[in-house]
């Protein structure tokens, strides 16, 4: 019989080994699964993890898709460390795209270097506003932010659909539900020739760096970490719980809103009914796999981006559905959560407990003769 025994102190080794174990286990599952789908596992592995990166273009795509993931995950991590469970980043991203896209359409044809900064400011404001709703409902009405932020994802998607089907639809777009293509001034400039990589990548890195400074160096960040680790101690120390909720939600919303602008001002270049292939949800996984730590988040976002690219490549090269990406994302998170148990516990083979051993270890029982 094997049982779990609590470690006297959390294991630092396992804190960082656990994501590696999870990645290895996910790849192993893939190896086992591909033959079952009638594919050579080595071909599949190649198509999934090597082929997407064998050209400069591919590397550009990797960084392009990692940008929104690391941006959103950084924002979410700030909340998660404070025990604020914002899982509606997908909706906040959508609202950011709506707000930023609204600015781009309103200033259509205006050739000014101020258009992009305005779009970004609007995007952040949109994401913040959307995240403010669950924050207000939680602080004012005690409503669970997990459920309210998630419900708002559906509302945001429907709002975007409403706009591109009606008010913001391109009159010359042959009735397709999409807006006009943005002007040149509303598009993030390209960063690397022969790829689609744009300056949003550096912006994402800047957001990660800012997140690191805020959480590790600032007093407010420290207060948020305390509120997450020991709510009672935080309360006793006078750290305002509502303020923690507000900050945790709004930071996540702002980052997601900015990521939304990065998408529409980047690879998409207009508003469409769908502006994200689930980045807001994938970023939750990125935040956990990255241990809620900026450096970890950068690596985890590259990995998750590779899973997106691998899914597309597997579809092209192996005729596998790209939905396999979602499957691997979920599996990865499962393995991570399972491996995390070893941070706080270790395995022990239980000794056979004999009556004598119990009596010997328990003076009270020995004395009463039981």
């Amino acid at each position, binding site marked *: 019989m094997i049982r779990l025994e609590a470690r006297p102190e959390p294991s630092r080794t396992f804190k960082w080994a656990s994501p590696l174990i999870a990645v290895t286990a996910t790849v192993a599952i893939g190896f086992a699964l591909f033959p079952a789908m009638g594919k050579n596992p080595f071909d599949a592995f190649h198509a999934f993890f090597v082929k997407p990166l064998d050209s400069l273009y591919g590397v550009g795509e990797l960084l392009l898709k990692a940008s929104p993931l690391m941006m959103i995950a950084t924002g979410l991590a700030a909340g998660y460390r404070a025990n604020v469970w914002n899982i509606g980043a997908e909706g906040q991203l959508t609202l950011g795209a709506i707000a930023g896209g609204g600015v781009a359409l309103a200033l259509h044809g205006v050739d000014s270097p101020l258009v992009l900064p305005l779009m970004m400011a609007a995007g952040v404001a949109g994401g913040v506003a959307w995240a403010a709703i669950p924050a207000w409902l939680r602080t004012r009405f*005690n409503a669970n932010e997990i459920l309210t932020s998630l419900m708002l994802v559906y509302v945001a998607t429907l709002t975007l659909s409403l706009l591109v*089907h009606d008010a913001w639809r391109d009159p010359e777009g042959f009735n397709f539900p999409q807006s006009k293509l943005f002007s040149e001034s509303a598009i993030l400039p390209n960063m690397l020739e022969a790829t689609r990589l744009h300056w949003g990548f550096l912006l994402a890195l800047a957001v990660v760096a800012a997140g690191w400074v805020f959480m590790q160096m600032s007093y407010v960040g420290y207060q948020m970490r305390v509120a997450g680790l020991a709510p009672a101690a935080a309360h006793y120390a006078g750290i305002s719980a509502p303020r923690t909720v507000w900050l945790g939600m709004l930071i996540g919303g702002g980052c997601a809103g900015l990521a939304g602008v990065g998408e529409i001002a980047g690879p998409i270049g207009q508003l469409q009914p769908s502006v994200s292939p689930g980045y807001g949800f994938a970023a939750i996984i990125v935040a956990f796999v990255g241990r809620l730590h900026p450096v970890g988040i950068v690596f985890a976002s590259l990995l998750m981006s590779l899973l997106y690219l691998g899914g597309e490549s597997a579809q092209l090269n192996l005729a596998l559905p790209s939905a396999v990406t979602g499957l691997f994302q979920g*599996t990865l998170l499962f393995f991570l*959560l399972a491996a995390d148990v070893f941070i706080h516990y270790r395995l022990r083979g239980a000794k056979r407990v004999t009556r004598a051993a119990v009596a010997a270890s328990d003076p009270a029982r020995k004395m009463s003769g039981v």
Partner: protein
Amino acid sequence: MDTFAQLVILTLAAGTPLVFAALGELVTEKSGVLNLGVEGMMLVGAVVAFMVAATSGSPWLGILAGMGAGAATSLIFGAITLSLLANQVATGLALSLFGIGLSAFVGLDFVSVVIAGITPLSIGGLSDLPVVGQLVFGHNPLVYLSFALFALVQWFLYRSRGGLVLRAVGESPQSAHAIGYPVIAIRYAAVLFGGACAGLAGAYLSVAYTPLWVEGMVAGRGWIALALVVFATWKPWRVLAGAYLFGGVTLAQFQVQALGVAIPSQYLSMLPYLATIVVLAMISRDAVAIRLNAPASLGRPFHPAA
């Protein structure tokens, strides 16, 4: 057909998946376990039920398979949270993301398949009776099953010894353990029951309600079911009332369109989600009532040595 009877039938039909899913989650939560993976389990149940119904030709076999699939997915959640003591919130989210991915992946070849679903009852003579005939005998057989499930859960939780033990585990696992009850095993059973119910809810959607398979067809009903449990302050009869309330709200979009009111469909599609938010805020506002009714150990892992 009588419009009133028709409205009642449609409302019950729309509310039934929420009844299944929310009653299952209620039992899980009563044991102290919070499983946020309802959406994922419903999707897996829906896709497996549809696949089995389509290949075997038997919708009822599909329903059974959907229940089994829901229970199997909940077992992953159980293993990670109960045996490996992982955070229940994170694991539940993972289960939902996993279920969305898995169902989209395996269901791809079944997207435009047509099956003979489970249709509403038609008992010769009885169903033709004026008003009462339709109201009493005109529902889908699974709607009657949801009534039975409600009665079973109500009886089990408050009238049986097993229900008392389950609730004790949810209130104070330490005390239940000290008396000698197998806390982890009881929680496993509650999680599996919740999973089977979520699978049944999904199966109802894909095999009886629509009947077809579309990626992501559960469309947030799993999350609404979770909100319903809070709305119901963990009481089965209030789950039932809430589910039909939401069934009615879902229905509004079709009714308004049928009346020819020119309002973009997106506004009406938002209604169930907005209603969930409003209702959740109204109920949660009374923090004392929530604290008194919620199982005291909800969401906390239990380790016998701790």
